[in-house]
């Protein structure tokens, strides 16, 4: 049998008998059988060869698990190589053969007592890799011994084994007290042991956020800093990452840590360098800027960052993503290093794009000439994506550095002359932005732009061009012809272009009414009658009504002066940036998202401490919303409302600030911003980045939007009754001028389980009103009137009637955007009127929203981390008790309260009428008026509104 294999293998591979490739003979039937015979051979050498063949098959993914008993039999050997090979095999297959694996336990226990530390370490290392529950119990005793072994090599291996065991059976590790032993190892005399203990603890802490495993005190910090100098480069990374989570008690401690970390900036291992940068960036926050040391430190940070850029491209990429954060946080560090970000033609594309981004961030008046020359160079490169981005970058420079705008524009014109199609299109898109920033300054170039009208085939470029034509219609003689030419294929255009075209023609009409009447008729009817796109129809109708009722007002609205676009539109929002700075060097820094947003079973150590969360990180059924696609082009998912708004301003052609009905006082900043971020966008037709400029909508939508705004402002500012849920004062939902004299104001309330809409109808017309009826559009939570609108007597002029309309939640459901948007139709004898309003979400919090403690724990664990949202509630001077009782009034129930390091953690639950549970953790620090609210819910889109409800309830 054996002799049969030999010739066969040498025939396949005649020349390479000395190498391992002989193990790669194809799997023939019977090979397993032959191996079996060899494994049971008496000759050591044969055995070893056979095990090697088995391992070779394993590495290429062949299934050799059938040989398990035979291989395990080879384990009792004094040949170290053979032992190691068998161990390799065991690790791979023990899981599939748990019963067999028990056979190996004895050997492990024996090997853990071996006089040779190498064997002891090998045994403890291997047994941790055998992921079989039955076995793990047997391993506790040997592991305990090894953790206290006299040889540091064994101790450091055992430290890692604790992490392995924790991954298999966390409870067991806790019960056996291994975590404490591991913590003790932080004070071990050997730096390697310290490093491994830190690494193991960090890994355990990741799946165990509540634990204070890595609570460091000045003594342990000192130990770590000492070990830092003496352990391996990898250990240094673990220690530095651990240090970064420490909060020094004052600036002196921060400085002394910084001083001891700074030498790591000269390490050859780039991961060490970046982790050191993280520690320094974080602790620098605590240092006074007047300190000499502060400026020394700033100077020391630049060279290592630049050095990272001479490494392999993969390292460069990660470094660049981090530098991108660093230059946003502290631009002074790299302001003189512009040139190292210049692109080389053979850089990989992912490096090029990142460099370009940083170049723009560093662009200033001082270096703009160089930057522009470079960008122009890049615009003639081969790679289309890169060229496009370079052209865009020129536009961004123009917007950022005013002095350079003229140069940028002429550079762009040069590029347009090249007639390279995609260059022209990009250039037109950015020139539109330049016009937005510097109105009436560069109109001379319009003629050149118009020449290229025909070559534009991308929606964004077409839309930009149409915007330009509409905006400057009075200076373009043939503007009507140009726009008309687009109109022919109206229905083939993308929505973006259609919307833009509609607005542009209306603008044109308002500027040159005489010649363009026909055109505007045509586009309005195309938009309203032939289109099935609701956005387009809506906008068409708005224009139509506006033009037909009051052309002067229309002019004021449509041709209103627009706010200038902001300088830097793609800055990461500051609080997110601060969080990301704490994550320098991690995946979060590559994706520019906080880890909670994307890593499955990720750590939460830094910003929350919660009831224990155990279990493996591989929960098979958890829904996955992790980002996909190319990271560089991605927008951060968690942009707070303000970011959205800024981003949109560039693309959205917003009108002047909304001048709705007079708003009640109490300008609570947060509320307003949130509403604009969340509410306005959707009212304007899903304004994401691809969204078309929305023309001049806000003023037109004054009524409903104003209503919503007023409502919210009221909610935020009014005085609430404390019986039942909080009720906001009434706000005007439908002003009289919009409804032929009928004014409706109202609010929502919830009392003992029933929701009602409290309305105040006022007749401001001269005639009597009667025959009232009300209807709701389908909405997110199925709110519907539970009874008809009862107005008993006709409403005579100047009379007001107060009505409480009971609501139920059994109406038909359609998801609205924003979620709490409610569209209402009110009819009377005169006409039908429409308005929309935003209801506070807490009217939907039901009375039985208190969750069992156990249930809460389990649910919190069960909801994936990406569903968690965090908010800040500012300026709330209440203490935990008051908060708790106030919230309880509105059916937000406190389930548990803990005091962690002087902070009160309230764990709360609430349930919506449709059965959605929302779990909350509210962190209240005595003396600090800012609370942190973390919400977890299976339907994460409600979080924002729940937060608003919290905000409203707590502040009234």
């Amino acid at each position, binding site marked *: 049998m054996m002799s049969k294999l030999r010739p066969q293998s040498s025939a396949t591979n005649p020349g*390479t008998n*000395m*190498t*391992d*490739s002989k*193990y*790669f003979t194809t799997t023939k039937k019977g090979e397993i059988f032959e191996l079996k015979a060899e494994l049971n051979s008496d000759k*050591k*050498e044969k055995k*070893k060869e056979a095990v090697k063949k088995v391992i070779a098959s394993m*590495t290429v*993914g062949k299934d050799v698990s059938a040989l398990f008993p035979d291989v395990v039999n080879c384990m009792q050997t004094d040949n*170290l190589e053979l032992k*190691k*090979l068998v161990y390799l095999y065991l690790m791979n297959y023990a899981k599939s053969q748990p019963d067999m694996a028990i056979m190996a336990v004895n050997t492990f226990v024996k090997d853990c007592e071996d006089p040779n530390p*190498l064997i002891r*370490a090998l045994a403890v*290392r291997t047994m941790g*890799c055998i992921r079989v529950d039955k076995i793990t119990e047997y391993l506790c005793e040997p592991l305990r011994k090894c953790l206290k072994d006299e040889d540091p*090599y064994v101790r450091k291996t055992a430290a*890692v084994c604790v992490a*392995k065991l924790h991954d298999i059976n966390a409870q067991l590790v806790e019960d056996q007290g291994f975590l404490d032993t591991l913590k003790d190892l932080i004070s071990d005399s050997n730096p*390697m042991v310290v490093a491994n203990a830190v*690494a*193991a603890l960090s*890994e355990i802490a*990741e799946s165990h956020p509540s634990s204070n495993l890595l609570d460091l005190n000045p003594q342990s910090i000192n130990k770590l800093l000492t070990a830092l100098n003496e352990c*391996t*480069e990898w250990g240094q990374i673990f220690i530095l*990452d651990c240090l970064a989570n420490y909060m020094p008690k004052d600036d002196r401690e921060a400085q002394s840590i910084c001083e001891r970390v700074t*030498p790591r900036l000269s*390490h*050859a291992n780039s*991961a060490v360098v*970046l982790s050191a940068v993280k520690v320094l960036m974080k602790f620098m926050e605590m240092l006074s800027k007047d300190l000499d040391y502060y400026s020394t430190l700033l100077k020391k940070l630049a*060279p*290592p960052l*630049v*050095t990272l850029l001479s490494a*392999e491209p*993969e390292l460069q*990429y990660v470094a660049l993503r981090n530098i991108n954060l660093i230059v946003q946080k502290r631009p002074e560090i790299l302001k003189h290093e512009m040139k190292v970000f210049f692109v080389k*033609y*053979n850089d*990989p594309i*992912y490096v090029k794009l990142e460099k370009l981004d940083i170049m723009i961030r560093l662009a200033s008046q001082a270096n703009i000439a160089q930057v522009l*020359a470079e960008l122009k160079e890049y615009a*003639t490169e*081969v790679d289309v994506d890169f060229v496009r981005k370079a052209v865009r970058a020129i536009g961004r420079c123009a917007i950022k550095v005013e002095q350079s705008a003229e140069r940028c524009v002429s550079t762009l014109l040069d590029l347009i002359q*090249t007639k*390279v199609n995609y260059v022209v299109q990009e250039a037109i898109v950015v020139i539109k932005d330049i016009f937005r920033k510097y109105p009436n300054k560069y109109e001379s170039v319009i003629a050149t732009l118009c020449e290229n009208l025909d070559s534009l085939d991308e929606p964004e470029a077409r839309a930009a061009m149409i915007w330009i034509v509409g905006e400057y219609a009075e200076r373009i003689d043939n503007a009507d012809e140009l726009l008309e030419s687009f109109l022919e294929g109206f229905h083939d255009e993308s929505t973006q272009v259609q919307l833009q075209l509609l607005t542009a023609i209306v603008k044109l009409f308002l500027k040159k009414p005489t010649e363009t009447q026909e055109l505007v008729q045509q586009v309005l009817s195309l938009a309203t009658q032939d289109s099935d796109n609701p956005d387009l129809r809506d906008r068409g109708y708005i224009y139509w009504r506006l033009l037909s009722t009051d052309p002067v007002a229309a002019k004021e609205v449509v041709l209103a002066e627009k706010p200038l676009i902001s300088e830097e539109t793609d800055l990461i929002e500051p609080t997110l940036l601060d969080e990301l700075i704490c994550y320098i060097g*991690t*995946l979060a820094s*590559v994706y520019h998202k906080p880890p909670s947003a994307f*890593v499955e*079973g990720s*750590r939460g150590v830094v910003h929350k401490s919660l009831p224990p969360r155990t279990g493996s*990180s591989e929960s098979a059924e958890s829904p996955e919303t992790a980002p*996909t696609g190319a*990271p560089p082009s991605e927008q951060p998912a968690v942009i707070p409302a303000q970011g959205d708004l800024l981003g949109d301003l560039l693309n959205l052609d917003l009108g002047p600030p909304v001048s709705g009905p007079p708003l009640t006082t109490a300008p609570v900043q947060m509320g307003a911003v949130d509403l604009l971020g969340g509410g306005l966008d959707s009212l304007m037709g899903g304004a994401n980045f691809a969204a078309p400029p929305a023309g001049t909508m806000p003023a037109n939508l004054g009524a409903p939007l104003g209503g919503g705004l007023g409502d919210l402002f009221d909610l935020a500012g009014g005085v609430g009754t404390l019986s039942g849920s909080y009720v906001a004062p009434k706000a005007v939902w439908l002003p009289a001028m919009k409804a032929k004299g009928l004014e409706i104001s109202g609010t929502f309330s919830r009392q003992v389980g029933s929701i009602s809409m409290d309305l105040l109808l006022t007749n401001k017309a001269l005639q009597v009103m009667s025959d009232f009826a009300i209807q709701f559009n389908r909405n997110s939570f199925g709110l519907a009137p539970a009874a008809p609108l009862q107005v008993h007597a006709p409403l005579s002029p100047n009379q007001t009637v107060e009505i409480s309309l009971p609501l139920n939640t059994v109406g038909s459901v359609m998801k609205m955007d924003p979620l709490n948007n409610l569209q209402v139709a009110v009819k009377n004898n005169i006409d039908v009127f429409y308005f929309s309003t935003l209801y506070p979400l807490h009217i939907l919090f039901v009375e039985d929203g208190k969750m069992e403690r156990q249930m809460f724990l389990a649910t919190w664990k069960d909801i994936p981390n990406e569903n968690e949202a965090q908010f800040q509630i500012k300026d709330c001077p209440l203490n935990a008790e008051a908060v708790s009782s106030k919230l309880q009034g509105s059916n937000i129930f406190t389930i548990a309260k803990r005091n962690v390091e002087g902070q009160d953690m309230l764990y709360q639950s609430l349930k919506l009428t449709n059965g959605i549970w929302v779990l909350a953790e509210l962190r209240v620090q005595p003396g600090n008026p800012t609370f942190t609210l973390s919400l977890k819910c299976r339907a994460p889109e409600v979080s924002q509104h729940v937060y608003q409800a919290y905000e409203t309830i707590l502040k009234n």
Partner: protein
Amino acid sequence: MIHSLFLINCSGDIFLEKHWKSVVSQSVCDYFFEAQEKAADVENVPPVISTPHHYLISIYRDKLFFVSVIQTEVPPLFVIEFLHRVADTFQDYFGECSEAAIKDNVVIVYELLEEMLDNGFPLATESNILKELIKPPTILRSVVNSITGSSNVGDTLPTGQLSNIPWRRAGVKYTNNEAYFDVIEEIDAIIDKSGSTVFAEIQGVIDACIKLSGMPDLSLSFMNPRLLDDVSFHPCIRFKRWESERVLSFIPPDGNFRLISYRVSSQNLVAIPVYVKHNISFKENSSCGRFDITIGPKQNMGKTVEGITVTVHMPKVVLNMNLTPTQGSYTFDPVTKVLTWDIGKITPQKLPSLKGLVNLQSGAPKPEENPSLNIQFKIQQLAISGLKVNRLDMYGEKYKPFKGVKYITKAGKFQVRT
């Protein structure tokens, strides 16, 4: 930490997999292949790819992809550094890091990976220690092993593992004690059309080959240490000594290693040793163009510039090129459109030039982009930054070592725009 490693060759075969925790199915690599397809060019595959349950962090080395699978938040640089270390180790052990070499030594590879990482934590990555644990393959040893049945796995604890100098093995003995240092400087530069320098810096390294017995303690000093203000050190260097005295003081690892790498960026210190005159033009509405480049010495400090090669990525529409070199030889690959001109050394009396016609695809529009020239060269016995080693002292051992320093300057990413 690092969960699994897959080695993938250019044709997309997974030829080795290693799992440090539970087994992750090969199918996870499909996401990688997808990204690879999208990137078109192998060099452009993004190094960090997210998949629904894992992250893939990869490097591309020697026509192989090292794809690691991670599941928790891990510093990507740590993973990338580690992967490069794995590739370095293969190179060190097998002389090359190729699919064939890895397959030929698969068991050693597996043993190495097992030693290098435990549960995703790096364990032993220093070549000195690895070599004590697992002997590198040699023809002789495998013959001896197969006759005597002895093994290539060491059975004592590597001495360096736990000492404060983990990079050095104990009990080193040589009959000839030698210490050699190579000061290698590479010039990275971008030169614009007109010949002025857009960007230039020097990336320098000092590579050491130390074969000294016992525990030698070395001090290396420079004539002009002020040049070195941005330095990365091998862990063996005592940082405090450097800070206070600008002396490199260290107990070296045994064998070859990189002592320091440094960067000289202030542009007036960076001499540009060659210049290029170029005239590359394509005529409008005709299917040909002119190509004419001449290369000459500039600030070469009186040394000969040699080993010059010019590489040009010609535009896609170029069909072929008819050129005449006055010196050296040229090749043009019509598939990749890469022109390579191997010049040799420059003699100032007669400057090498390459002239001739470029044939374009008929009917194709004139190329918009101008090709950049990539230039390689070497200058022996010169560190272009002016860095000079002053002296090397040895303490701790009694013998007198043989010492040597060599300087060389090379082109790094040296690009001339046209």
